[in-house]
């Protein structure tokens, strides 16, 4: 049972990432193991989960099995959490009910020569992910208004260009320069390569 009282229906999607994950651990064994974990209704193997066919499969399984928690056992959440959050949200699952298990950066890539050890660790990692997912709750991202003005710190060539581009787009820009004049190091240079023209 979830915190809210609904029945937990967890789907686990194990990614091979081509050979990035499948090359150094037994993905099928991990998939099979996931089936034995509490509240897991489906456990699926994908070649590339982040690609459209992989994402479509997640959506299909969610719809067909009424999944309300999704585990993607693939790469770092720092890489693809936004991808899969959008994917599950697309079929009506709150994006915070997704949990990622980092089989690639934290397992297959760092245990290239220990297939057995890596597979056991991967199983454990999926188990930890499921344990966490069972207590996940939906979250709501609040909206805040945006001040459509920008601050540029530094008035060298980069700061000047950013300020001009933003101002030309129509936004109010504040440009703060610590020296008495803008120009930065560029203003000290005589001619600039490759055009050999004046820097100022």
């Amino acid at each position, binding site marked *: 049972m979830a915190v809210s009282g609904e029945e937990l229906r967890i789907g686990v999607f194990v990614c091979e990432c081509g050979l990035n994950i499948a090359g150094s651990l037994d993905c099928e064994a991990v998939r099979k193991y996931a089936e034995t974990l509490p509240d897991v209704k489906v456990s699926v193997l994908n070649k590339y989960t982040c690609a459209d066919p992989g994402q479509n499969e997640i959506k299909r399984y969610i719809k067909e099995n009424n999944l309300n928690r999704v585990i993607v056992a693939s790469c*770092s959440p*720092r*890489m693809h959490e936004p991808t899969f959050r959008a994917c599950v949200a697309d079929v009506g699952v709150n994006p915070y009910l997704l949990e990622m298990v*980092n089989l690639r*950066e*934290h*397992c297959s*890539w*760092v*245990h290239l020569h220990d297939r057995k050890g890596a597979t056991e*660790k991967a199983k454990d*990692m999926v188990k*930890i992910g*499921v*344990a*966490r997912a069972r*207590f*996940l*709750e939906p*979250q709501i*991202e*609040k*909206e805040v*208004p*945006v*001040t459509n*003005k*920008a*601050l*540029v*710190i*530094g008035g*060298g060539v*980069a*700061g*000047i*260009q*950013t*300020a*001009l581009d933003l101002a030309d787009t*129509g*936004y109010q*820009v504040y*440009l*703060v320069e610590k020296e*008495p*004049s*803008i*120009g930065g190091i560029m*203003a*000290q*240079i*005589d*001619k*600039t*390569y*490759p*055009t*050999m023209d004046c*820097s100022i």
Partner: protein
Amino acid sequence: MMDVGRHPKIKLYAYSEVEKVSGYIGNFKVKVRKKARYVDETKCNVCGECVKVCPVAVPDEYQMGFSSRKAVYIQLPQAVPSSYLINMKDCLGNNPIACGKCAEVCDKKCIDYDMQDQFIDLEVGAIIVATGLDVYDPTQLDEYGYTRFENVITSLEFERLICAGGPTQGHFIRPKDHQTPKSIGFIQCVGSRMERRGNPYCSNVCCMNTVKDTVLLKDHYPDIEAKVFYMDIRAFGKGFEDLFKRSKEGGVKYIRGIPGDIEEDPKTGNLILTVENTTTGKIEKHNLEMLVLSIGFIPRLNPDPIQQLLTLSRTQDGFYLEAHPKLKPIDAPTKGVFFAGVAESPKDIKDSVTQASAAAARAGIILAQDKLTVEAITSIVDKELCTACEICYRACPFKSIIVDKEKKIPAEIIEAACAGCGTCGAECPFGAVTMRHFTDRQIFSQIDAILDENPEEKVVVFACNWCSYAGGDMAGISRLQYPTTSRLIRTMCSGRVDEQFVLYSFQKGAPVVLVSGCHFADCHYIDANRWTQRRVERLWDKLERKGIRPERLQLEWISAAEGQKFAKVMRVMEEMRKKVTKEEIEFTKKALSDLKPKGTKKVKVMAKATA
């Protein structure tokens, strides 16, 4: 530069510094200190009468000290804003008895000795960091003789000497006798690509800068003999190879080898270089009348107030860390903050301009929206459990909690200001704070999953999202191998790691536990990891009192760039795990069996988690 001054949508605050930044993406509040110029820039028309009467002369920074300026001065003739200012450190004083000459001659009455610094409050949606670079000081490379030998100058000094707006009106002379040299040498990679001194990275621009300098010299003085000493010429950009060819066709000699020693002929001031020409394998001596050291870039020197104000991190080379090296090279890890130019890494003008336009486009994505969604991972307080003790308020790096101890008003989180580090949750002694998406219940359940079976074979690792977890990612990307025993629990910040998580792990039979977070200056929640440190120190005491070896709890700071360190720490942890005996684990379980959860809520939580 002029376009900035007259653009109706740009408000320029020159001679100003950012003092304070608060808020979050879309809604930053910024305090700017506009330093007193002592000259009213709105009235000054740069007539220059003040300069004529100023009796003070100091080295002119803009001209690299080759000429002098007055205490009242303009930084460069084309300055924007076009106005004089007085440097009060140089000025004889605002006492008319001491001087006061400039105020007397200024017809427009622009000069105000009593001018004060002004503070300006701004509200902005996005911030672009274009704080640039410092240049390497080659004085420490003693073999090159910079500052010891007059005719050894840096490439930036060269720019002023060849420039028509420079101290010599573009007549290129050497400092010792003010004569145009007949021969000149350039040494590349000064302070760059040096492992032991200077910096290990390539500064990107110095090769092409020297190529350009030689072309300029040959244009002005076709008979000058120019030699470039290099390890390899990196001329990879558009049009670069053509310019390099033009330099060689103009008669510039390129010699592959970095001089090991330079001596000065005291009579002539000429320089004798000893170099191994690595093309011929022979030791050569070159007699040159002048020498230019092609100096590299260095990041803005520490401590950089901007870094702290915006909670930015640096990569190992000292330049600012981007959100992702390939996919988000313009974004800072702090949302709503972007990089332009050398602040992020050494680059030339074209690349700086390119990145600047990209930063404008990235910032524009935020500015174009009326509303933004903000962090959902924030804290909530159970007011029934809260005793208004104010501990959470003290722990909160963003001060996003309202609570009043005296009036017994329980804590309330200002959600829009809460960044979601979870330090309040870890510090609350009454279990009144729940950290959304990283709840106690979720984390206890993860600990259970790790330690239910064969706990003696596992290393429990708490890793913060931004640095140590990312350091683990970096270890993976770099294929650094380490033992398979580690099991990670990710939290947004190490500040979230509750004492109870650690003690519970030991109680469940964990041989070793690691708490890892960002380095102190790098914490993405300002200084939340200082609370981690204090908490771990408390835990060490607690473990010791219970007769448990405190070394079994380790604390490590691992940055997102430190894949190697992450892998090394994992190996060390595994060595430690092997040394923990079964008896020791059993003893620990017993010693901690009376572990009392803080607050009534947590009793329930742990009971459930263990059920």
